[in-house]
């Protein structure tokens, strides 16, 4: 865990915290969500707390501010990623803008000993797991292909080949069962990824072996230029049913609902009932990556509609309305954001290129004669320039 994470992740779900924010009075006032009854929501876009029969949540003011802070800081360094790409410091940046609640909420549901298998956009999950943002940026700068130690935060490397990590997550979860442990795993993937055979196979394996894995699908409505209807003609959460495990759709812009639903899903897996699918219904507010031009395939109207559902805004409204955070909190968080952006910027700008001999390293754990030969030949070749230079 690094200092920037809001709170140390607990070894157990934080269910017994004492100070609760939703007083009975408040609870009584809570409304049923207005929208899709199949969509789990605990906080409306307008910042109103609503109850859901199956998913209760009861957080301290501290915890609520912590979730808010996680989302704000994630958004801040994500924006920095976009800027750094524009400035040529990064080759590419896949922004998570709009998906902060899905990522922070789900990741905050995890225990330290749980394991996250991300795709390439889970900067918010990484943040919560305590992976320093600079580490994430390295691969988009082109200095490595990942390179953080997955085991130091139980946060696997980003996986670019769509869907592959769902199987790694499942295998890891199978291993947990073999160890007799009660940890769990979250496999993150997108709406587009749901079409990959690997994801279907991971559903099969997880179901057959009762593996403790939560499949967390961020349906951000788009797979680059393709809307979700190009991947499925029914809501994605329903996919699970055909494999024999439950699926649920949660408002992916509602951090409370994401936290509550993922927590319940993780508990479900821990109890030996096998996997669960969570579809977080959200929106990719930005381009697919900095290389993408969404004006070619989607209307700005659509984006605008989702702006009203912003995950950060609604929690802020709630915090303000309930008097759970004061101006100082917001002001100091803004400073913290700026500082984080600066820190990331500086870290990137001073990030050194790898030594060219690194090409020949870490290909094999136990070595390989050809690699040795090629390394030596390359070194000799490089040395020949030095000689010529003499």
């Amino acid at each position, binding site marked *: 865990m690094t200092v920037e994470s809001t709170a140390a992740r607990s070894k157990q779900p934080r269910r017994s915290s004492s100070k609760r924010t939703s007083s009975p009075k408040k609870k009584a006032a809570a409304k049923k969500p207005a929208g899709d009854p199949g969509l789990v929501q605990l906080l409306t876009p307008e910042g109103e707390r609503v109850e859901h029969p199956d998913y209760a949540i009861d957080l301290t003011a501290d915890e609520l501010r912590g979730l808010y802070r996680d989302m704000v800081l994630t958004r801040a360094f994500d924006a920095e990623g976009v800027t750094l790409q524009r400035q040529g410091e990064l080759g590419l940046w896949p922004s998570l803008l709009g998906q902060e609640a899905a990522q922070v909420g789900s990741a905050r549901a995890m225990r330290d000993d749980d394991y996250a298998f991300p795709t390439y956009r889970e900067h918010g999950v990484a943040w919560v797991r305590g992976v320093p943002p600079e580490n994430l940026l390295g691969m*988009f700068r082109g200095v490595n*292909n990942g390179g953080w130690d997955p085991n130091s935060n139980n946060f696997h490397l980003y996986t670019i080949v769509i869907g592959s990590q769902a199987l790694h997550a499942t295998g890891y979860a199978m291993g947990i069962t073999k160890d007799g442990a009660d940890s769990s795993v979250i496999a993150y993937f997108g709406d587009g990824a749901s079409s990959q055979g690997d994801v279907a196979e991971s559903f099969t394996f997880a179901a057959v072996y009762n593996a403790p894995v939560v499949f967390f699908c961020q349906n951000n409505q788009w797979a*680059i*230029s393709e809307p979700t209807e190009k991947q499925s003609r029914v809501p994605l959460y329903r996919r699970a049913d055909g494999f024999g495990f439950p699926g649920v759709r949660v408002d992916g812009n509602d951090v409370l609902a994401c936290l509550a639903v993922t927590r319940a899903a993780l508990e479900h897996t821990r109890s030996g009932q096998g996997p669960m699918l969570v579809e977080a219904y959200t929106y990719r507010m930005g381009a697919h990556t900095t*290389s993408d031009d969404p004006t070619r395939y989607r209307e700005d109207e659509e984006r605008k509609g989702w702006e009203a559902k912003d995950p950060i805004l609604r929690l802020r409204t709630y915090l303000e309305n309930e008097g759970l955070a004061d101006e100082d909190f917001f002001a100091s968080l803004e400073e913290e954001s700026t500082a984080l952006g600066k820190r990331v910027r500086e870290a990137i700008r001073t990030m050194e290129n790898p030594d060219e001999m690194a090409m020949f390293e870490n290909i094999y754990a136990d070595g390989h004669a050809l690699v040795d030969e090629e390394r030596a030949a390359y070194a000799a*070749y490089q040395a020949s320039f030095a000689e010529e230079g003499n």
Partner: protein
Amino acid sequence: MAAEKMALAKAITESLRTSLEQDSKVLVMGEDVGKLGGVFRVTDGLQKDFGEDRVIDTPLAESGIVGTAIGLALRGYRPVVEIQFDGFVFPAYDQIVTQLAKMHARALGKIKLPVVIRIPYGGGIGAVEHHSESPEALFAHVAGLKCVSPSNASDAYWMMQQSIASDDPVIFFEPKRRYWDKGEVDKTAIPGPLHKARVAREGSDLTVVAYGPMVKTCMEAAAAAAEEGRSLEVIDLRSMSPIDFDTVQASVEKTGRLVVVHEAPVFYGSGAEIAARITERCFYHLEAPVLRVGGYHAPYPPARLEEEYLPGLDRILDSVDRALAY
């Protein structure tokens, strides 16, 4: 003379457009090939003009794309499939190797599968992992497939149409870092055979064989060598399966020396096949062993190292020097 100057990517677009126009059975399919026009804009505008029925945005599943393309071909269509990047062809590898490549033989010729698989390949564009690979040897080894790669706009234009016209499955490797290179395209010309190599530059001291993105680099190397008084003959192979060994042989019989250049790792790469076969064909003509310049036995490195990883002028000339020193 109807020659136009256009970028290599644009030449492919035009070629696809012409094919779509000329044969109503031709389809274009893949991820994001529709409205977006593909991540490299190679299919730009095609869906608008030919409709969603012929230019098809597919679900995100490469095995599904190739597998359904096979089914469409069985129904009489001629699908041109786009794989978004080289590193994403592997989920489709099973369908390509066990089905696409073998079905004609399995049916004793009664089935033909005119499917083209377009793969933007190779490095040099500063991309993240899986976006810069050169997997051609993994396809050329497999009987039933043909593998080609244009190095310039004109070849891109013609070879694409010839590939679509071919009744065999063709893996069409597009040198993505040359997409924006412009060249003359004469749409009224009569193209040569699809699988014939081209002598891109004549020379007498040593033959350099390359294809796709490396042709340009080798031409630059030849120009640099010429300044040092060395005459390199550069052959643009164009086809990795079949390989036009006759053209290479004729050149090596003249020069006595051969360097093969490709981006793909050398180990088990196409250079090995060329070296082995040309050595057999030209044993008494070779003054030096065939030398190979290519990628190392390593995963394609992060972008900041790719200049070191990829064969460049210096590494090519170093091998030329070594070959000439024999």
